[in-house]
């Protein structure tokens, strides 16, 4: 017994079979109390969300008692022109940010991985700065910049600020995938008669496609419910939805906020679900037809 354990002790983790033969399996690889961490995590994460969603369907104004099912707060929200404008403003910002940041971020990733750029090292560090900068700092400095150069605060300034700080996310995601795609695959395409542009279109982009989609949807979700950057860089009207919610909360929480919150969460969830599902759904033969206009 002691000899057997001495031998097994050489491995950092004794193999399960050996353990079960000599002694009852010890559960040191997954302590029981971790289960309670998980429960606590789920309660603290999900409970507020569930409550918000639940009370968004409350028929009364109460935030304590559920008095019956109704959709009146959703009606209220959709009938409120300002809030509706804010929702569309947020969607517009997220969409533009997603498209521009994805294009720029992908190009940056390609440049960093595939070229022997003279400033490659510097750009690599520079690219990480937005990821580690506290958003409040980014927001304040963006505000200062815009006022310094005399730019009117508007949705455009929000977009510029968000695009700037979203590029890095795209680059990090796409770069990882690109690094995994050997250079020789692109060389093989050129060897077989594809020009650089054809190689990019037919080989590189299709291979990067899942990463690009995932990055784009991540940026959309981040941008759609971003508060800090938007708060500092937005003009007065229309304001992005999170900023609008914040200002209306100062006059008291109404169940309309719950309705908005639930809707926003649904939009974000749908985005994430799309990010997970899309590469799988279109990862088969037909995606070339969809994406590249080629017959499969």
């Amino acid at each position: 017994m002691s000899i057997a354990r001495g031998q097994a002790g050489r491995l950092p983790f004794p193999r399960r079979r050996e353990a079960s033969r000599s002694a009852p399996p010890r559960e040191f690889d997954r302590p029981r109390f971790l289960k309670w961490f998980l429960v606590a995590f789920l309660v603290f994460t999900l409970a507020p969300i569930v409550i918000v969603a639940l009370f968004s369907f409350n028929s009364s104004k109460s935030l304590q008692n559920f008095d019956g099912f109704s959709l009146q707060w959703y009606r209220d929200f959709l009938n409120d022109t300002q809030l509706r404008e804010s929702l569309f403003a947020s969607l517009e910002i997220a969409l533009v940010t997603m498209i521009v940041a994805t294009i720029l971020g992908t190009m940056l990733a390609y440049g960093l991985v595939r070229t022997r750029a003279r400033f490659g090292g510097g750009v690599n560090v520079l690219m990480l700065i937005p990821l580690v900068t506290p958003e409040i700092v980014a927001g304040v400095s963006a505000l200062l910049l815009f006022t310094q150069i005399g730019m009117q605060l508007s949705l455009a300034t929000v977009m510029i600020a968000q695009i700037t700080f979203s590029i890095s996310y795209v680059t990090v995601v796409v770069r990882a995938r690109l690094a995994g795609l050997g250079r020789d695959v692109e060389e093989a395409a050129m060897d077989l008669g594809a020009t650089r542009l054809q190689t990019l279109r037919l080989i590189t982009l299709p291979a990067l496609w899942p990463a690009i989609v995932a990055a784009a949807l991540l940026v959309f979700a981040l941008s759609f419910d971003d508060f800090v950057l938007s708060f500092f860089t937005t003009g007065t009207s229309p304001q992005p939805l999170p900023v609008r919610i914040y200002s209306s909360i100062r006059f008291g929480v109404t169940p309309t906020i719950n309705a908005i919150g639930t809707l926003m969460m649904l939009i974000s969830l749908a985005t994430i679900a799309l990010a997970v599902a899309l590469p799988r759904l279109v990862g088969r033969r037909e995606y070339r037809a969809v994406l590249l206009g080629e017959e499969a």
Partner: protein
Amino acid sequence: MEPTTGARAAVTEGRAGAAEPAIRFDGVTKRFGDTEAVKDMGIEIRRGEFFSLLGPSGCGKTTTLRMVAGFEQPSEGRIFLEGKPVEAVPPYRRNVNTVFQSYALFEHLDVADNVAFGQQRKKVPKAEIKTRIAEALELVQLTGREHAKPRELSGGQMQRVALARALINRPAVLLLDEPLGALDLKLRKQMQVELKQIQREVGSLSST
């Protein structure tokens, strides 16, 4: 066929074979920084010849092949393919195809599309591509696997796809970078035999 036409064709072929080597290196040197990967290399390889480069790793075999394919430019000297200097010719316009050491198959395309890639770039008519795919796959004994994805294939099968993908274009020069390195002994023997059979049709330079 009319005898005169046949004779003329034979003469042309003969002349091309005798006068113009498929590959000619003229004093080629390649330096990476301070290291000389290839030093003052001068070789001629005729059409239909099977030429192997041997040597320990890091002695410049792959670099030599990459210069022929067009992925590297010689630091000094010139390379001629079928009699013409190629320093200004980009890889995608050289009549050279490579079987990469890592195979470098296109993961998102199936076997048939991998093999068809070169022909599609040359705008060969679809019906003809189809027959050629069938021929090429038969040559490497992969008939029936047209719609398999590269990740569903074994190492030996992937290599044969890479080979078919290059051969279908009937290149003047076929480059094989460590063609048998990744295979086990049995497959290696089998591929050697197959390569010898295929060799009669193309001039080939290989590195083993």
